[in-house]
């Protein structure tokens, strides 16, 4: 491991501490207040917070911390670019539900984290980033590798800290963990000056405990609102439940299911809500929004009640706001008061933790006959439903949708799928049917290309026993492909599916639909990904035909180490249906008649 590399490079401080600890084992857990350097306090505090894995990259100002690492039971994953560290911490957090930790040095090390931090911010992911900075007396002097990272990350963190005293490190890191996990989760950055790392202070983990978390003062779940919500649900003829990311963040899967089943209300999912309600459940309609199925979006436009649970009416979900769900009353259950009435005006707001709110609401909900509305939705699927593509005749072409469907079928839907951003992401959401929470890991809010590979590495460390698949396009994969070397160095088993269509596919699709097929800067020349994997010592295989998919996927799964599949899919395929940006839900572009994936009434 990385820590071993540092063992021989002992500085004078390191020796002093070793003496103080009288050569005790590396797995020291400090139960009594002990004098430590700031660098040691960083690790001791992380260990105290339950951290055993961090993702990072060393450098000048963070060297004291790396030097101290060998004394602590923390596995450090050496990334190839700090953006990878941030995405790995993010993937770790999404797969485990715990806080992910990324470490970087000052200057470029810290700025390289920014995209990953923003990705976590937009999707409310609990993450703590620890960066080092130049010594406090050099702050603000444009010293070598100095950058104002707390200033830079201010708008993309939930909160950030600049620490310049060793005695402040433990309380600040503990506070950072509390902020990252509490209320609506998010990323927190702690910037520590080099002198704070080098100086020493008394480390007392318990004394460094932050004040009790204060819930947002505008949380409000009133009796009147609960009664009104129950009344609306009772009287609704065409209700829908929206399940968002909050379902998983608050652990309300059971409560959502109870509500849906008891009142016989169909459930539509946001992209990040996928997994929060089982796709195989008869009441599950699938994903809503820009690339949601037509019957879902049509149902939203016809609904008379929307029960929005832990979601924020993102523009990808609503389309044109003035035409959005005009016939529906809206109940919004949401933990962040700033999201209420932000995009969509709601009739009843229950502002609080989703699970707690549903626990209060459920006793007021009685059984209800929803058959007529469910039948209407079922009937609306008709022509536009996606037929089960496994039954399609093999036309010799390889469609990305085939790959997603086969992956789902062959993995039993049990794998963690980590996608990049673009067409393949939407196909995954449409064709891989997730029944369990935290099995789809994807950058929804920020839409960060290059996310998949590093986030999958993080997910694998969070869930080493799970099968993890990267699903990435040829464009996004190249943004962070350097992390293939991380996979090899850390000897982890990850399967990689590159959905290779030779284009920046989603942009190409927009160009086709809205820019007269002017494919400016979207055709993409890529290296041979199988050879690229081979250069890293990762075996791989190219897949060109539908008939080859199953054997290839099974070969990857059976391989003891990482494996890459390069799926050479149809080049100019598009994701349907699609609501053009700025259009209303009912103005969607439906599947064209020539599309082999469209179901006709004759299909079984």
């Amino acid at each position, binding site marked *: 491991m990385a820590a071993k590399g540092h063992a021989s490079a002992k500085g004078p401080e390191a020796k002093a501490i070793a003496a103080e600890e009288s050569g005790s084992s590396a797995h020291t857990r400090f139960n009594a207040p002990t004098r430590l350097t700031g660098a040691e306090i960083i690790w001791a505090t992380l260990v105290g917070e339950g951290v055993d894995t961090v993702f990072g990259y060393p450098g000048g100002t963070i060297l004291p911390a790396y030097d101290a690492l060998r004394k602590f039971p923390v596995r450090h994953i050496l990334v190839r670019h700090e953006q990878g560290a941030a995405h790995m911490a993010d993937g770790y957090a999404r797969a485990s539900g715990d806080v992910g930790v990324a470490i970087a040095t000052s200057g470029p090390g810290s700025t390289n984290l920014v995209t990953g931090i923003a990705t976590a911010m937009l999707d409310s992911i609990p993450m703590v980033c620890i960066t080092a900075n130049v010594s406090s007396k050099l702050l603000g002097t444009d010293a070598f590798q100095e950058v104002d990272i*707390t*200033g830079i990350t*201010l*708008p993309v963190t*939930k*909160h950030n800290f*600049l620490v310049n005293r060793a005695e402040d490190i433990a309380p600040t890191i503990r506070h950072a963990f509390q*902020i990252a996990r509490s209320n609506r989760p998010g990323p927190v950055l702690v910037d520590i000056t080099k002198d704070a790392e080098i100086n020493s202070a008394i480390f007392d983990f318990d004394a460094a405990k932050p004040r009790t978390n204060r819930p*947002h*003062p*505008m949380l409000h779940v009133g009796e009147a609102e609960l009664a009104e919500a129950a009344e609306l649900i009772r009287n609704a003829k065409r209700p829908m439940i929206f399940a968002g990311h909050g379902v998983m963040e608050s652990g309300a899967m059971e409560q959502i299911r109870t509500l849906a089943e008891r009142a016989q209300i169909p459930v539509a999912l946001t992209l990040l809500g996928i997994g929060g309600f089982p796709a195989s459940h008869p009441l599950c309609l699938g994903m809503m929004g820009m690339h949601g199925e037509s019957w879902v979006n049509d149902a939203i436009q016809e609904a008379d009640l929307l029960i929005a649970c832990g979601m924020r009416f993102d523009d990808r979900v609503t389309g044109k706001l003035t035409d959005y769900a005009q016939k529906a009353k809206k109940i919004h259950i949401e933990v*962040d*008061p*700033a999201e*209420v*009435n*932000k995009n969509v005006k709601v009739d009843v707001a229950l502002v609080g933790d989703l699970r707690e709110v549903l626990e209060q609401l459920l006793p007021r909900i009685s059984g209800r006959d929803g058959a007529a509305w469910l039948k209407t939705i079922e009937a609306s699927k008709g022509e536009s439903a996606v037929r089960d593509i496994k039954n399609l005749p093999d036309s010799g072409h390889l469609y990305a949708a085939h790959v997603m469907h086969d992956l789902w079928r062959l993995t039993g839907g049990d794998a963690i799928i980590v996608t990049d951003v673009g067409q393949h992401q939407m196909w995954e959401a449409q064709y891989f049917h997730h029944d369990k929470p935290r099995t789809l890991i994807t950058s929804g809010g920020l839409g960060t290309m290059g996310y998949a590979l590093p986030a999958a590495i993080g997910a694998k460390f969070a869930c080493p026993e799970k099968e993890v698949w990267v699903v990435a396009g040829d464009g996004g994969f190249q943004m962070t492909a350097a992390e293939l070397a991380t996979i090899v160095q850390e000897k982890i088993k990850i399967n990689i599916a590159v959905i290779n269509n030779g284009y920046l596919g989603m942009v190409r699709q927009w160009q086709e639909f809205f820019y007269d097929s002017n494919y400016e800067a979207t055709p993409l020349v890529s290296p041979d990904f199988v050879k690229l994997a081979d250069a890293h010592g990762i075996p791989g295989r190219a897949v060109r035909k539908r008939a080859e998919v199953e054997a290839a996927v099974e070969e990857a799964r059976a391989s003891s180490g990482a494996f890459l599949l390069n799926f050479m899919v149809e080049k100019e395929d598009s994701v349907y249906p699609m609501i053009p940006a700025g259009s209303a839900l009912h103005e969607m572009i439906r599947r064209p008649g020539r599309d082999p994936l469209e179901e006709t009434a004759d299909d079984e």
Partner: protein
Amino acid sequence: MLHTFVAYVEDIPGVLTRVASLFRRLNININSLTVGRSERPKLSRLTLVCEASAEAGHRIRASLFKLENVVDVDDIAKAPSVTRELALIKVAANPHNRAQLFDLVEVFRARIVDLTSESLMIEMTGVESKIEGLIEVLREDEGRILEICRSGKMTMRRGHHVSSVVKAMDAGPIVADAGAVIEEDGVASEPA
């Protein structure tokens, strides 16, 4: 509409940036911002005035509360409150035309806090319209005003209250005489 937020924030470096950054992100211009120590130890009190849509108030307040260093936020809206602003105005004046300014200052219940052979400084506390009234009159003589320094608005709800009362007031109906800030006599004699 004009929104007035009163907030208690931690008195540590960077807090003002966080508050200001929130408004920058929302593309809302801050009309005025005053900050100073409060009755609560280690907490500063700020009054922030901005122009935003009527619906924006709720979201701004909720977003302010999400800032870690913000302890309390009150959206004054149209609740009965007292708002004051302090202005220092340096005016060109010589021994020949001073007397006229002395009269003017008397009328506006302002006071003169510095006097030299070429200029004098007027200190005035009051509502915005009153300060603007004085400035307007002083501008009648071109070139007379040398410098203006205004503090921005400071606002306090009327009546005795603690935070819990503020919350109760939020939930309740808006008081009938809301909107107009009642001017009080003798305000000019209050210490600045």
